[in-house]
């Protein structure tokens, strides 16, 4: 799966000459009032998660959009750390975020490209359960803990508008995730361990523009 995604990202390069073509009279096009989108994607590096989001984008100008998102991190991804010890994501993991998209445009022509770039901030909670097999009793001992996450990313991608209403978006924000682990196994519920890691979130989004 990981190999296929890397190959897909490289394959996108082949479409560049097509994507770079001018849009017709961009500033005279009807600007949508609001775009409602749904996306799916996954997070790479360190903690690998899959997520699904609902997002609302507001076009401030023809070349700038502001967005608010709510992402539900999908449970069921299991991590095995060895015989008798595993960890899995629980239900109730989520993220909320804001982002801004800037579409570069022609200096004279006003030609709007599908390509965009901008900041992307997300905050959320990841809930985990760890299972340790107790050989004496023959049962799994479950312990719950959670990550409080903050992501600071550079969002980039390509957005296409088909007709007046359909929006399709491919993106791969890259950035840093800071997370605090609240784990009762540390001896005290209030003890937290902070860490950070590099993250990338390849995402496919479909939307409806009003």
């Amino acid at each position: 799966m990981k190999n296929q995604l890397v190959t897909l990202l490289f394959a996108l390069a082949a479409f560049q000459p097509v994507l770079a073509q001018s849009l017709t009279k961009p500033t005279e096009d009807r600007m949508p009032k609001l775009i409602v989108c749904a996306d799916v994607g996954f997070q790479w590096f360190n903690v690998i998660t899959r997520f699904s989001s609902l997002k609302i984008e507001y076009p401030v100008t023809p070349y700038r959009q502001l967005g608010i998102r709510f992402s539900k991190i999908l449970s069921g991804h299991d991590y095995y750390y060895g015989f008798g010890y595993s960890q899995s994501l629980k239900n109730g993991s989520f993220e909320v975020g804001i982002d801004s998209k800037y579409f570069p445009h022609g200096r004279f022509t006003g030609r709007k490209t599908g390509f965009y770039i901008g900041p992307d901030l997300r905050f959320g909670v990841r809930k985990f359960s760890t299972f340790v097999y107790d050989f004496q009793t023959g049962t799994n001992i479950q312990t719950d803990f959670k990550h409080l996450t903050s992501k600071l990313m550079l969002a980039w991608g390509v957005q296409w508008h088909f007709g007046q209403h359909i929006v399709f978006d491919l993106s791969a924000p890259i950035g840093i995730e800071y997370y605090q682990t609240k784990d009762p196994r540390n001896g005290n519920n209030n003890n937290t361990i902070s860490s950070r890691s590099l993250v990338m979130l390849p995402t496919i989004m479909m939307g409806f523009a009003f």
Partner: protein
Amino acid sequence: MNYFFRLSLSIAIFCSLAACSKYQRYPLPLNKLKKIDQEFLNYYLVDAAHPTTRVWYMSDCKIGEQEISCYLTKLTEVEAAEISLITSRSDARASKNDILFYADPKFALGIQDTCTRKISTDQMQKIEVIELNHLKTYGTPLLSLTGFLGLLFLISEG
């Protein structure tokens, strides 16, 4: 591999690739030309049939709704080729304030070497400017960066 090393290496790759800005020619509608600050622009009239040999420099340009009035000075063939051909990225960057009006060949035949003329929009085939191709300029480095990070991840995770 340390994440900070990954990030700094990626930024270095991005910056080095982003320095390779890609320019190309795009058509410009006349109505948009009137909305541009024209103080720093250089206008050239190009014979559409002989774009590399017959080029005039347009000075004292006044752009109206249906016509452009200006003083024309014919350039030498070497200068004409320099104006109409993009030979390198630095050449494109240096020509980013040039606006080329492609005149109808029949009309261009009757233009003298130096003269004051009014050129109507009917006598022009197209107007072209050189602009940054944003997708190639920023998209390529970002795509490379993403691929590079993906490969690093695959190597480090085995």
